[in-house]
């Protein structure tokens, strides 16, 4: 059975171009605008949507994404609400993969089985859950695989060769390489090392590898896209939402600001293999 994720990677490989995974916080700055932003992403050039699940205590996120989560929660967002966004999105888009990214507790409280059934039904393709390392696979990773949802693992500069097989064992869909030790939004220190690390991961797996954390501009996209099957961009998108707000409220510029930024990143990425 091929999945939406398999299909976008296969198509990109065919076209010899890296993918763009665009991260937004689900329901930021408010539920309606958040939905409009999500709906606009494929047209703007996003190949995969990473939809952030807001959480009160995002321990691995920098300030921008922390604030995005707080705006979404203040606007009344819930886990069920984010699943509703996916359902709504799927009414018009059957092909763009949607990967939920967040922390475990809201899912645990919702109930793992109920969550997986609802997510599958809504059209969710994958999960990236920051605080579930391989050691906790029994919690959600294994049940997700059974439910037909990819569990995408983060690998980091601290994941050495000895550990990689453990981390990759139950990973599916793709592998997400975190370009640095740090929270989202920090700065990549060594770009050359990123390319080497991607090669190191590829020696252990057939899965596509995308690189994220610290990619901020079209030039970054062009450079990082050279090293990997795709790139993930989040902080600058959430920042673009923040900058478009007036008194914390969405304006008629909010959706456009995200659309323009994503289009710019996608254009940069096109240069990666030119």
């Amino acid at each position: 059975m091929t999945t939406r994720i398999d299909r976008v990677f296969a198509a990109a490989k065919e076209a010899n171009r890296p993918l763009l995974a665009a991260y937004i916080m689900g329901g930021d700055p408010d539920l309606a605008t958040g939905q409009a932003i999500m709906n606009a992403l494929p047209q703007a050039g996003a190949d995969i949507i990473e939809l952030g699940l807001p959480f009160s205590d995002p321990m691995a996120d920098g300030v921008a994404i922390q604030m995005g989560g707080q705006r979404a929660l203040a606007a009344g967002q819930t886990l069920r609400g984010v699943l509703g966004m996916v359902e709504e999105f799927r009414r018009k888009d059957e092909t763009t993969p949607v990967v939920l990214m967040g922390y475990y507790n809201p899912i645990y409280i919702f109930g793992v089985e109920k969550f997986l059934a609802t997510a599958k039904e809504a059209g969710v393709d994958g999960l990236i859950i920051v605080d579930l390392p391989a050691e906790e696979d029994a919690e959600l990773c294994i049940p997700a695989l059974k439910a037909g949802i990819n569990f995408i693992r983060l690998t980091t500069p601290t994941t050495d060769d000895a550990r990689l097989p453990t981390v990759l064992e139950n990973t599916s869909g793709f592998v997400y390489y975190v370009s640095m030790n740090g929270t989202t939004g920090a700065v990549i220190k060594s770009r050359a090392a990123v390319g080497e690390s991607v090669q190191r991961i590829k020696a252990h797996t057939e899965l596509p590898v995308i690189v994220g954390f610290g990619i901020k501009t079209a030039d970054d996209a062009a450079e990082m896209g050279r090293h990997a099957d795709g790139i993930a961009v989040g902080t600058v998108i959430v920042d673009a939402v923040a900058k478009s707000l007036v008194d914390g409220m969405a304006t008629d510029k909010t959706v456009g600001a995200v659309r323009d930024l994503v289009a710019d990143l996608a254009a940069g990425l096109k240069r990666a293999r030119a």
Partner: protein
Amino acid sequence: MDGINSLRNGPDENGRFGLYGGRFVAETLMPLILDLEREYRAAKIDPAYQAQVKDLATHYTGRPSPLYYAERLSQHLGGAKVWFKREELNHTGSHKINNCLGQILLAKRMGKTRIIAETGAGQHGVATATVCAKFDLPCTIFMGATDVERQMPNVLRMKMLGAEVRPVTAGAGTLKDAMNEALRDWVTNVESTYYLIGTAAGPHPYPEMVRDFQSVIGQELKEQFREREGKLPDAVVACVGGGSNAIGTFHAFLDNPEVAIYGAEAGGHGIDIENGHAASMTGGRPGVLHGNRTYLLQDSDGQILEGHSISAGLDYPGVGPEHSYLHDSKRVTYVPITDKEALDAFQLCTKMEGIIPALESAHGLAQVIKLAPTMTTDQSIVLCLSGRGDKDVESVGKYLGLLK
């Protein structure tokens, strides 16, 4: 040896105490906490390490801490004899130093060159800054902005000891937010930095390790009490924030069912007031935060609540996983103590025994005050007096109207 039915066997190899505990951390940190576990196992059976811990406990901390019979208070309460295990007499003024010394030696063994820690009341921050001064390591202490204000004397102590104190303004600016920020620093500086967690919570192996370092409290107490009274106490009581002084006090007694065990949680304005207390076991339910599954204060969507307590050291929406396990198994009775009850206990202790307790410890004392009159005069309760109240005199003074 503890038998198969012992309550002292946890955690298992996955760091679980029954359902609770575990290693819910980002991949960046995983290799490090596996290293830490290996290093801890090696240190535990290394006589040189053990000898160093023992030597520091004796000559730096001042152990054993005395077991004191609080005679006036006992007579006043008119029931059980009340005893204090005087952890407040330790160097730096609380039980926190027991854990810091054990961990700083581990950090040294691991070749780490920088220490970070979170603190609520500032007692753990002071103890960390102290061992960092002694062992010549730079340290950064994360402290909620609200706590920086209400525990100013400890902030000054940390700074004088050479620590950098970073106020955290996120959320309510209390212990939970400080811990988030410490974790963010740790993922960023994982190669150089050791995270010296201050309570028996967080990812495995911290809950086990911190418990082991604090278990000296209960071991000494058991021996001292037997020497004085020729038996075991009828009850032991401790306050529970993350639960390090409590698990340290309780652990030696878990397999003595004749000893009743009570943990005093922060009842704040009252357990019925949403977000008005920090009693995670009486008022919360199991969830996952800060590396472990445990009882948490949270809403129906799994978002963590800030909670409230007059005591900065208890103002935390979670609790160490071993307490969650002991709560479910009913071996330990956890009770909420309100701000008001703690303040009353604080004053009573000060006036009757000439001992100014930390507001945290005053929560434990409030439970003793409720319990003693229900017991007979040949029975005994031992309270872990986890810290001294010097840090609290200003905020209590404000509550009592002694300051404008």
